[in-house]
């Protein structure tokens, strides 16, 4: 493949108190790949995503983002151009109208004066409306965000990501609090938009079915170590069974 590696994770470890969250984990992700992180609760998926989002730092090892070590991106505005994050639906400011939550994706480019002016007269409105149209919410532009349903709120978060337009999208359990129909809808849109924008997508998921259906590559974590790293259609049911097996049952 000629695709360059955009993310290179090199021997990272992380401990919390005495508990090992990740131990010398290594893998790399190519540009445009759609990767699902799977594994039982407590396997270290969220810790890994938080390290990639530079919310926390690894105790050992390094992460290279587009060829440069993560520390080079200490400037938050520069980092936001590289990596964007979507979490569960509690991510939005419910008291603001939808348009301001979408335009928050522009805050990295805006100075103080422009961002305060935008709360009075929305700036670069067209960009926000265009991305709301793409996620299928063209009629909710001025609605109070808290009044939207869970699925709609996740679409607003997607619209914000479109406006932010990072190269890599990290999704931490993006559909965890949605019912199956809404979850499929949001996942379909997330993967479709990432493909259209030529973005790299890394998502942690609880559901194996969704992971297989919407992603190219599955990375399984168990107890902080890499359990397998395979193309989505090469993963067997035995491997999955072993991944989610409870320790007590093995003995």
């Amino acid at each position, binding site marked *: 493949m000629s695709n360059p590696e955009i993310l290179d994770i090199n021997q990272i470890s992380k401990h919390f108190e005495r508990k090992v969250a990740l131990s010398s984990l290594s893998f790399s992700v190519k540009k445009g790949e759609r990767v699902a992180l799977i594994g039982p609760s407590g396997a270290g998926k969220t810790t890994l995503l938080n390290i990639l989002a530079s919310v926390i730092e690894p105790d050992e090892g390094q992460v290279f983002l587009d060829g440069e070590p993560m520390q080079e991106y200490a400037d*938050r505005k520069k*980092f936001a151009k590289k990596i964007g994050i979507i979490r569960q639906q509690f991510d939005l400011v419910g008291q603001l109208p939808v348009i301001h939550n979408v335009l928050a994706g522009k805050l*990295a480019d805006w100075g103080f004066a422009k*961002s305060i002016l935008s709360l009075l007269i929305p700036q670069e409105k067209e960009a926000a409306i265009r991305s709301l149209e793409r996620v299928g919410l063209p009629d909710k532009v001025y609605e109070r965000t808290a009044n939207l349903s869970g699925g709609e709120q996740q679409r607003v978060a997607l619209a914000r990501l479109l406006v932010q337009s990072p190269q890599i999208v990290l999704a931490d359990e993006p559909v965890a609090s949605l019912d199956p129909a809404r979850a499929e809808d949001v996942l379909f849109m997330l993967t479709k938009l990432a493909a259209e924008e030529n973005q790299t997508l890394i998502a942690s998921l609880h559901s194996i079915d969704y992971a297989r259906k919407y992603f190219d590559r599955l990375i399984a974590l168990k107890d902080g170590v890499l359990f397998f790293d395979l193309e989505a259609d090469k993963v067997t049911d035995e491997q999955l069974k072993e991944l989610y097996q409870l320790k007590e049952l093995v003995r």
Partner: protein
Amino acid sequence: MNKLSLAYELHKRKLLTLLLTGVFIWSLFAVQWSTGLIHGSGLATAGQIFGAMFQPDVSADILIIALESSWITLAYAAAGMSLAIILAFFLGIWASGVLASGAKSRYFMKGTFRSVLGFMRAIHELVWAWLFVASFGLSPYAAVFALAIPYGGILGRIFADMLNDVPKEPIQALESAGASRIQCLIYGYLPNVRANILSYVMYRFECAVRSSAIMSFVGLGGLGYQIQLSLDDLQYNEVWTFLFFLIGVVVLIDLWSSQLRRRLAL
């Protein structure tokens, strides 16, 4: 032994309740019920005062005085609150530490500005009023500053606490979208606390009206001053007129506040 200490752990609150109730009942024996509880003519005076409640003085000149002094009281309260809101807005934001970038500077900012707010509200508005009357004389500035300082301290403290209680997820999301501290403040923190802070400000405005009335006992004019004059003349009917005006102002503010809150909740 173990069983006993477990039983103690389970029932220690009830034991304390029992003990405190006992202390209260015991304290009742210290009261001399027969004499000295109410002075001789006290009941008669109380009767007159509460009797006058049903016959407030509604003569034209008293009503005009009441209207004028309500206006003064309200004006002092409004001016004092406006100043208090400005003080509380800036001091509260600094005291919450949400603008600080590092843990150290946050600790320093929180410590400093929380102490400033503490100092402002530790002294009661009446005491501030005395101090300002002593320095400025009987000018409206004395009343306005006397209200603004302690109320700024109270509002600022509550404002800072509210900012600290804002849920973390939306703020983190803004940060990861590349927002600076001040952008997080205007897009995340402030919209989050807006409705709560407004309703608290309105409640405090009510309190300010009452305080402003009380403060005028110092001689600053307003409803409290008129109440004092009428009381000195034993004109209880007039006292009640002024009190009803005070109640009216407070009720009006309450109506306004609930209307505002309803509009904001949409």
